[in-house]
Structures are given as C-alpha cells and as structure tokens.
C-alpha cells in the first residue's frame, strides 16, 4: 500500500522536482482565478443574476463572521480569510473529480497554508500595534508566560496543519482501503461523509486562522467580542 506521506513526482522543471500535488494546486488556482474573473465581469446593480446573489451572500456571511470575531472593519481580513476558506473548500472537494487527489491530503500543502496564517498573524500584529506592542503581547499576563506564549505560537500552527492534513488524508486513505477490500459502490457513503468533513474542515480552518490573526491584532484578551451593553432596567 502506498504511504500517505509519499509525494509522487510528476516531472522535473529543470532542477526543481514538481509533484502531482503541486500540479493539482496550480490547476485549482487557475480554475478558481478564471471562475472569479468570469463571475466578477458580470456584476450589475440593476439585475443581479444567480451567481452574483450567491457571491454576495458569501461575502456578507464572511463579513458578519469576521466582525463577530475581530472588532473593527471586516474588509481588511476579507481577502485573506475568504481565499483560505474557498481554497481549502475547493481543494477538499476536488476529490469529486476522478483521478484527482486533494492537495490538502498532503502535509506540504497544509504546512504552507499554516505558514501563510502564521506570517499574516505576525504581519497584522506588527502593523496594528507596532513592533514594541507586538513583542510586549508575549509578556502577558506576566513575563513568566513568555516561554509558554512562544511555544503556543508554534504548537497552534502545527496543530492547524495536522488537523487539516489528518482529516482529509484519513478520508482518502479509508476510501482507498475500502475500495481495495470491497467493490465498486461500497465506498460511496464514505465519500459523502468525506465531503461533509471537507466542508466542515474548510470552515474550521478559516475560523481558526481568523481567531489567530485576531488575537495577534487585538491582544489575547480582546480576541473575543466584548459582551453587549446591558440596558439599565
């Protein structure tokens, strides 16, 4: 049986080895860019079509989620979080196409996505609070916590990687095992479960990325929205 950690080589681009995972990722990126360009060319104010309504619903849901997690203008995180959500979703569901293995079922893709989240957290933290403010956020609630906070920065992104990798890879792996044991139609319920898991994991990945970036922006104590003001009776 093929190891789930193996990465089959597609071809060599000069000295650089290109794996099938990277090829699938490129194909997905091209398809998503073309679809986005096609959908954005047809935007109108007067008579919105079905595609436009779906896109507006997506953007509004995303904005309300972001505004509920990080106080302030949701538009600054919309691009990054929305791209992560859509890419992970499309990548998880790309197993619907016969012969395509989802790129998120390989550790390298997930590690790259988590690295993007890590860099975004550092970048947004420094941009909104300054280098000094960002560095002092590690010394909260007291300087004793500095090693723990540093370790937490690493472990939360590693767990982000392993969570997505494990969930998608185990789906692919289980379908492979059942297919080799049983027959043609038996893995179909498992594939349906795999689609549900893929959608939920895309949502979880985007939400956790938002929470991590939000905690870097607002400081850990401000990551959750403040409770609504109680009206005096």
């Amino acid at each position, binding site marked *: 049986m093929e*190891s789930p*950690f193996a990465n089959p080589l597609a071809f060599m681009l000069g000295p650089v080895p290109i794996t099938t995972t990277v090829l699938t990722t490129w194909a997905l990126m091209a398809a998503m860019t073309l679809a986005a360009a096609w959908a954005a060319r047809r935007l109108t104010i007067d008579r919105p079509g079905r595609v436009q309504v779906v896109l507006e619903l997506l953007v509004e849901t995303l904005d309300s989620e972001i505004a509920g997690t990080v106080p302030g203008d949701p538009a600054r995180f919309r691009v990054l979080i929305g791209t992560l959500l859509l890419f992970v979703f499309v990548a998880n569901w790309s197993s619907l196409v016969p012969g395509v293995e989802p790129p998120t079922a390989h550790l390298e893709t997930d590690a790259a996505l988590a690295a993007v989240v890590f860099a975004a957290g550092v970048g947004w933290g420094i941009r909104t609070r300054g280098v000094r403010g960002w560095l002092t956020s590690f010394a909260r609630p007291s300087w004793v916590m500095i090693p723990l906070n540093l370790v937490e920065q690493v472990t939360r992104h590693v*767990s982000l990687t392993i969570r997505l990798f494990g969930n998608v890879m185990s789906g692919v792996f289980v379908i492979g095992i059942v297919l080799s044991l049983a027959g043609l139609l038996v893995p179909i319920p498992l594939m349906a479960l795999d689609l549900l898991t893929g959608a*939920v994991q895309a949502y979880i990945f985007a939400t956790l990325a938002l929470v991590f970036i939000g905690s870097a922006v607002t400081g850990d104590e401000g990551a959750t929205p403040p409770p609504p003001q109680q009206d005096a009776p």
Partner: protein
Amino acid sequence: MTDLIQIASILGAAFAVSFGALGPALAEGRAVATALEAIARQPEAAGSISRTLFVGLAMIETTAIYCLVIALLLLFANPFVQ
C-alpha cells in the same frame, strides 16, 4: 532487531488507534446527547445548535485523527526502520 522494532511499531499503532478512539468516542456521545436534549427542549434553536455541534464534533474528532496520524507515521514513516 529490526523485526522486533517492526512488531513493536505495529502494536504501538494498533494501541494508539484503539485507545485514541476511546476518549473522542465518549466525548462525541456526550456532545450529541446534550445537543439532542437541547433541541428537544428548544426546537426553534435547532439550526444554530446543530451548526455549533458539527464544528465541535470536528474539533473533538481531531484528537482521534492525531492518534491516526501517529499510527500511520509508525507504520509508513518509522524513523527507526530503514
């Protein structure tokens, strides 16, 4: 010597998956039972409860997935077997 390591790896993988499935199974059963109770008491909140339930279940399931990853590492990418 390598045989011994391989036997130990297979046993370790089996134990990792079996014991790693115990905790999440109990936790997921508890979560689903509580959610069903909440839906029975407040059927109008079923939408938001089940959405939160799915996300929570995926989070709980992740701990079992970690054990599966460790088991597969032992079987396929064991650092002690060349």
